[in-house]
């Protein structure tokens, strides 16, 4: 994984941990590649939009979900794969 993508991945994982603390929901599994942001109950659709906006702003990148199934792009690595970065 490229350096930028690794940063994006860590950014998402930090957000997941923040949400978990904010909502007082213990994480039942480790935050791995297949961790589901929406399936875990931590992110609803609006939270997901907020995360999308933050990533696009922070990394000056565009996110395109159109080629992936929702079950994929709502996971950590699935989301990262949808981010278009200059290195690609």
């Amino acid at each position: 994984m490229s350096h930028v993508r690794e940063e994006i991945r860590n950014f998402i994982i930090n957000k997941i941990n923040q949400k978990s603390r904010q909502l007082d929901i213990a994480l039942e599994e480790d935050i791995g590649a297949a961790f589901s942001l929406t399936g875990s109950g931590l992110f609803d659709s609006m939270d997901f939009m907020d995360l999308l906006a933050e990533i696009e702003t922070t990394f000056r990148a565009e996110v395109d979900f159109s080629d992936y199934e929702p079950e994929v792009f709502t996971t950590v690595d699935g989301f990262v794969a949808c981010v278009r970065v200059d290195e690609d």
Partner: protein
Amino acid sequence: MKGKSLVSGFVNSANRFPDRPALEVGKQVVSYAELHHIASGIAYTIKRYDPSGTDVAAILAYRSVTAYAGILGILLSGKGYAPLNPRFPLERTLRMLELSGADILVVDEECIDQLNEILPHLKKPLTILLPETSNFVGRSKQLDLHTIIRCTGAKPPAAPADAPPVEPQSPAYLLFTSGSTGVPKGIPVSHGNVEAYLAYTCKRYDIDEDHRFSQHFDLTFDLSVHDMFLCWEVGACLCCVPESALMAPAKFIRDRQLTAWFAVPAVPMVMGRMRLLKPASFETLKYSLFCGEALPAEIAKAWQAAAPGSVVENLYGPTEATIAITNYTWNPSVSPGECINGVVPIGWVFDDHKACVVDHELKTVPQGECGELCLSGKQVTRGYLNNPEKTKSQYVALPGQGDSVWYRTGDLVKLDERGCLYYQGRIDNQIKIRGFRVELQEVDATVRRFAGTEMVVSVPWPANRENAEGIVSIICGAKTENEKEVINQCAKILPSYMVPKRCYFVQRMPLNANGKIDRLQLIDMIQRGEIS
């Protein structure tokens, strides 16, 4: 005199098209004959074990074959259905079950765990049907109170059940909406009400057995009735949108080659932000309907471009007037000029129904002026479940309009010279979040319980868009200022869309000239960062 049941259309289609697909859930395709057979088994079991002949039976099921077969089965047994939502907190589900008066509950496999949570709280015996489950092991000591019928206990019927004749006024379904006192309001919708809706929509839309309908709404949302029963009325196929695709159903629409789409405007708004509304994305769609909240013109425009072969319509209607009662067809050339404040008109009232715009004395306002929308006609229900006071205040006679009963929507509208209606806002503190009705006072009442103070005001947030995305609560004089605790406690009572995203603790509340808490000023203070 007896009339047609809501399930009649399905039964006719099952007789005409037994081998055509009626339902797709995941990879499973269920024909009309198969669905009829499964539903008949449930109906037969309900009739055999029916303890007291109540009007409705409840169903706790989610996006499964049993969810749909259960609804059909309940209707085939002659009862109305009261859907529960496994995504609601336990306390709300218990309340809805209690208010419904149902003593029969159909449960699918996915909801078995929740059934085990419900059972210890029930004092009244239930007859519980588990059509998918043969090995139910309850954890509750109170299991003996109830009759549990596993699928192996249900003898299959010799022949599929016919649609029973029904009293037109008897309930086809019972739904609950947010209640400003903190108690959900039950709205029974009769077979006669929904027959009028289906008669109009079947005539309006050129649909037949080759169509493929989306089923996006939760079953506790009345728009799901359109999905199911308009689809089955014409012999079309109902495609259940899986939970994983609800937020972003673009690929689902394409993969399933849907021809008829129906959702709240929040869905295309989210899809737009995710860049999933690209031009010509949905070439199979012939009808795209939106309802439940204000439809921004930009979204109608983007959807039309994404679905160039589709008629795009904005529908409007409270649950009390059965699904929807006005419609407006988007015309790319003309409609942008007809929108007010960037919002698509709600259009014209359905044939054989009436709309009246009134002032606070219920007198008709001059044309073009803003007033409260009142509705009359066969789709208008008779009142709230066991709530004569609220019924009396909302179902009224209007001066100079004879004996007709009119439903006061609480929606502010303007009517133009063509009879086209334009939504302007609310007269009260009801808002919409993703199409769900929310009485802010219900949120206030819940927050009060846990904040230990009466001074609570909940407001929509963000406040600068046509439709709110969430709620924040401002609390004054709380016993302890523990935001997380208040939110977590609310989440045990309220559906997720009603739980405040934030709680702000203040020393004093701003008051307006009448001495009442000034909600608008509170919103202003949050926007300016004076409350954080």
